[in-house]
C-alpha cells in the first residue's frame, strides 16, 4: 500500500475539473494558447515522455496565477507551465525581451537623460520604430522616467531614519525608484508617522520580468542576491508593490529553486503590515476630516494569489470620506511586460476590456491598485488616474496627528 494518500507529484493531483481553464484570462481571447490545464498538468505528462511535445504557445501564459487560485486540488499550474518554459523552450529571449526584462538597468541608463527619453519615446516616429525594430507595440504609452529617484530623495530629504525607535526595511522595487518615487515618499511619510524609521536594503530588481521573458539565470542571480541581502537584517521587509512581493515570496522557490524559507515570512506588503499593527493595537491612525474621494479598487492578479487584498480593503475602509468600490476581480491584461509586446497587445487589451468598461462606467476620482503595471494599463486604457493605496493613505491621514498618537 502506498503510504502517502496524495501523489507527491503535484501535477498528478489534477482531477481535470477544468476550472483553471474557465478562469484563465488568456484562453478566452487567444485560441493559440492551450489553456492552463492542457499547458500545465496535461502537457507535463507528454513532456516527460518526450520534450518534443513541448508547445511554444506556452509563452502566451501571463503568469497571472488565476488558474492556481481557482484550482480546488492545489495544483501549481502556472509554476508547471513556467518550469516547462524554462526546461524545454527553444525560443531565446530577443533584444526586446532583454530590454523589457532589465527594468533596473534601463532605469539607470534612462535616468540621467530622463526628459529626453520620455520626450522621444512618446513620439510617433519613435513608437513606430520600436514597433518595427523591437516588437514593442506602437499603441503602448510608456511610464515616464524621473530625473531623480527615490533612494536619492530619502538620503537627501529624510536622512534621520535611525532616530525612530522601531525600524522597517523597505524593498521599493524598480518602478518606485525610476518612475514613481512618490510611492516611496508616501511610504516613508506614513511609516514615520507610525513611529517607524525606514532603512534601505541592498536590493536588486525582484526579477519577475526576467522570469516572464525567459532570462532564467539572471533572475536566479537576482533572487540569490536579494535573499542574501534580506538575511543580513532581521527587520521586516516591507514593500508597496504586490508583484515584487509575490515573486520574492513564491516564485523564487517554486520556479527558480532559490530557498527563501528563512526570509519568506518577513516579506510583507505595507497594507498588511499596517493592518497587523492596528490589529495588535501597536499603532493608531488619525485621518483628515476634509478628505473626500470616490475610489475604485482593482485587485491585481498577484494580490489575489497572495490572498492579501482583504487588508487593503479594510485599511482603505477606515478612511472617512473615502467611498470605496471593489471592482469585480479580473485581469487588466498587462501582466508586467506582456502587454508591451506587439504579439500580445491586442490580447492584452481584450483581456482588460471588461475591467476598463466597468471603470469608465463608474468614473471614480481614482482607481487604486498595488501594482504599477496594472496602473499603466488602466491609465492608458481608461484615462482614470491609478494610485497606489499608500498614496491614498498618505493623503487621507493627518500625518502630524498620527505621529503624535504613535510617539
Amino acid at each position: 500500500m502506498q503510504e502517502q494518500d496524495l501523489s507527491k507529484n503535484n501535477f498528478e493531483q489534477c482531477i481535470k475539473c477544468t476550472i483553471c481553464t474557465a478562469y484563465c484570462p488568456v484562453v478566452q481571447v487567444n485560441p493559440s494558447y492551450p489553456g492552463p490545464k492542457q499547458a500545465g498538468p496535461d502537457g507535463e505528462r507528454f513532456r516527460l515522455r518526450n520534450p518534443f511535445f513541448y508547445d511554444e504557445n506556452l509563452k502566451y501564459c501571463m503568469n497571472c496565477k488565476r488558474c492556481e487560485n481557482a484550482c480546488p486540488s492545489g495544483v501549481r499550474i502556472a509554476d508547471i507551465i513556467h518550469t516547462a518554459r524554462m526546461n524545454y523552450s527553444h525560443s531565446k529571449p530577443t533584444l526586446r525581451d532583454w530590454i523589457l526584462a532589465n527594468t533596473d538597468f534601463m532605469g539607470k541608463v534612462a535616468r540621467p537623460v530622463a526628459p529626453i527619453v520620455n520626450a522621444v519615446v512618446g513620439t510617433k516616429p519613435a513608437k513606430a520604430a520600436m514597433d518595427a525594430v523591437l516588437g514593442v507595440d506602437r499603441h503602448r504609452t510608456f511610464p515616464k522616467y524621473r530625473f531623480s529617484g527615490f533612494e536619492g530623495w530619502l538620503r537627501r530629504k529624510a536622512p534621520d531614519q535611525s532616530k525612530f525607535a522601531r525600524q522597517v526595511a523597505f524593498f521599493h522595487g524598480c518602478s518606485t525608484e525610476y518612475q514613481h518615487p512618490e510611492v516611496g515618499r508616501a511610504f516613508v511619510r506614513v511609516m514615520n508617522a507610525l513611529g517607524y524609521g525606514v532603512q534601505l536594503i541592498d536590493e536588486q530588481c525582484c526579477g519577475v520580468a526576467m522570469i516572464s521573458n525567459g532570462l532564467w539565470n539572471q533572475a536566479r542571480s537576482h533572487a540569490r542576491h536579494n535573499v542574501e541581502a534580506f538575511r543580513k537584517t532581521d527587520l521586516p521587509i516591507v514593500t508597496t508593490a504586490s508583484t515584487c512581493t509575490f515573486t520574492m515570496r513564491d516564485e523564487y522557490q517554486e520556479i527558480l529553486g532559490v530557498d527563501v524559507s528563512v526570509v519568506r515570512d518577513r516579506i510583507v506588503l505595507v497594507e498588511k503590515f499596517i493592518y497587523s499593527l492596528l490589529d495588535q493595537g501597536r499603532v493608531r491612525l488619525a485621518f483628515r476630516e476634509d478628505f473626500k474621494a470616490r475610489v475604485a479598487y482593482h485587485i491585481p492578479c498577484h494580490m489575489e494569489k497572495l490572498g492579501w487584498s482583504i487588508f487593503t480593503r479594510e485599511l482603505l475602509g477606515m478612511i472617512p470620506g473615502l467611498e470605496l468600490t471593489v471592482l469585480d476581480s479580473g485581469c487588466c491584461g498587462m501582466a508586467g511586460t506582456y502587454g508591451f509586446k506587439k504579439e500580445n497587445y491586442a490580447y492584452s487589451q481584450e483581456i482588460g476590456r471588461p475591467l476598463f468598461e466597468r471603470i469608465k462606467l463608474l468614473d471614480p476620482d481614482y482607481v487604486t491598485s498595488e501594482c504599477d503595471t496594472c496602473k499603466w494599463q488602466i491609465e492608458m486604457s481608461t484615462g482614470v488616474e491609478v494610485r497606489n493605496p499608500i498614496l491614498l493613505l498618505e493623503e487621507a491621514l493627518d500625518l502630524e496627528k498620527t505621529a503624535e498618537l504613535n510617539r
Partner: protein
Amino acid sequence: MNRQEYDVIIIGGGITGAGTARDCSLRGLKVLLIERKDIADGATGRNHGLLHSGARYAVTDSESARECIEENMILKKIARHCVDDTTGFFISLPEDDLSFQATFVERCRQAGITAEIIDPKEALRLEPAANPALIGAVRVPDGSVDPFRLTSSNLVDARLHGTDVLLYTEVTGFIIENGTVVGVMTLDTRSGEKGEYRGRITVNAAGIWGHGIAALAGVNVGMFPAKGALLIFAHRVADIVLNRCRKPANADILVPGETVSIIGTTSTRIPFEECDHMQVTPEEVNLLVSEGAKLAPVLESTRILRAYAGVRPLVASDSDPSGRSISRGIVLLDHETRDGLKGFVTITGGKLMTYRLMAEKATDLVCQKLGIDAKCVTRTTPLPGSESSSIEEAAGKIWASPTTAQKATVGRLGDNAGLIPMDDAYSQSLVCECEEVTVGEVNSAIKHLNVNNLVDIRRRTRVGMGTCQGELCGCRAAGLLARAHGCTRKARGDLKHFMRERWKGMYPIAWGDTLREGEYSQWVYSEVLGLNEE
C-alpha cells in the same frame, strides 16, 4: 450461408491472429479472421508492453532469449511507430547476489544480446528514478511496444491485402467433413445471427481461449491459465525499462509506455472460468507496489491509474500432460499429425514479442499444407505508418509546426497520421484531453478501423487511457459514435459500459487522487449527465 471459400480462417484477433492474418495475406492467401470480442482484448492488451531484449530469459531459457533479441531487432525496423527504443537496465540491489550479474551478462552475450555493465553512479545519472541503493546495472536493448497499435497495424495491413475481419463473432463449432476441418460455425454476438464460413485450413490463434476452441474441434490442447496482474502509474517515472538482475520473479519489470509506467507482474494459476472475469486482489496490488518500489522508490508516492490482469496461455508439453513441465516457448500444433484431424492448426504459447515469428511459423505450415511456395516477407516489410524513424521526423513531413495534438497523433500512428483529417478547428478539437486525441482521429478510427463501441475506440486511439479515465472524453466519444452509427440509444449504453469498465480498473487502487477523480467523474456522469436514470 457464406459461399465464399477462404484459404485460411484464423480464430483470434490478438496479436498472434493479426500477425498470422498479415503474413498469410502478404503471401497471397485469402484470409478470414474471426474474433469473439475486439482486437487485442485478451492477453495481447493485458501485459507490460515490454519490447523484450531477451535478457530476461537469457539465464533460464536460452531459446526464448534468442527468439526475443532477433524479433526485437526486427520490430525496431518494421514497427517503428509502435516501438519506443528506451533501452533497459537490469539492476542488482544489495539483497541480490551480484555474482548473478556475471552469469547473466555471459548468457546474454551467448544469446546475441548486447549486455553492457554500467557503473552504478552512471546508471543513476542515466535513470535518476532507479533505486539509489543499486550496486550493479547492466544495459540491454529492451524497449516498449504498444500492443494495441501493433495489433491494429497488422490488421490494417492484412485488410489492405484482402483479409476479411469479423469482430464480435464467436466460433461455436466446426464443420468437419471426412476427418477434415472445412469451416466454422459462428454467432454474431451483437445481432445473434448465425453463420458458416468455409476455409481450407483453420488456424486456432485464440490464446488461452484456444483450449476451448480445440475442444470444439474434438482435440485436446493442454493449457493452463496463469493470471498476471499489473499496475499503471499516471506518468512516465522512468525513461528506461527497469528489471531486477536475478532469476525472473514477481513485479520485477517497470516499463515506460507512452505517457505512463507499468509495473508487473504476478503469476497465479487460475481456473478457466475466471479468464473472462479477472479481478486484481489487494494482495496483488500490495505486492506490485512494494516490489515495484524496489526498482523505483518514487512509485511509493506516484499516482496509480489502474490495475488490470491478463492470462498467459501456458501450454503443457505433450509428453507431460500434467502441466508440471511448462514451456513458455512457441507451440505450433499440426492436428493432422498429432490428432489425425486435417485442416486444423493451433499456434499458441510464445509472447507478444515473438508474435511475428509465431505468425511466420504458422503461415509456413499453412502454406506447406496448401502446397503453396511463398516466402515470408514480414521480417523486412514495414507495417503501415512505420516509414519514418522518429515522431519528430514523421511530424515534420506532415506539418511545418505541429500542435501538441498533432504530435500526439503522430506518436500513435506514425506516418499514417497524415491520413487523418486535421485541418479545420473542429477536427483538431480534442476528444481526449489527457492523451490529446482529436475529433479527426476518433472519427477516422470509427470509419476505418472496425469500431463497434467506445472500448474499441479506446484500444485504437488511447481515448480514455489518460489520468481522467474517461471523465472528459467518454461522453464526447459517445457523441461521435452516436453520430457515426446514427443511434443515440446504443451510444448511451456504450457510454455506461465504458465508464463501468474504466471504474473496474480504478477500483482496486481507488485511493488518493484517483479516488477523488473517480468520485468527480461519477458525479459528472450520474448527476450532471443523468446517466443513472436509465
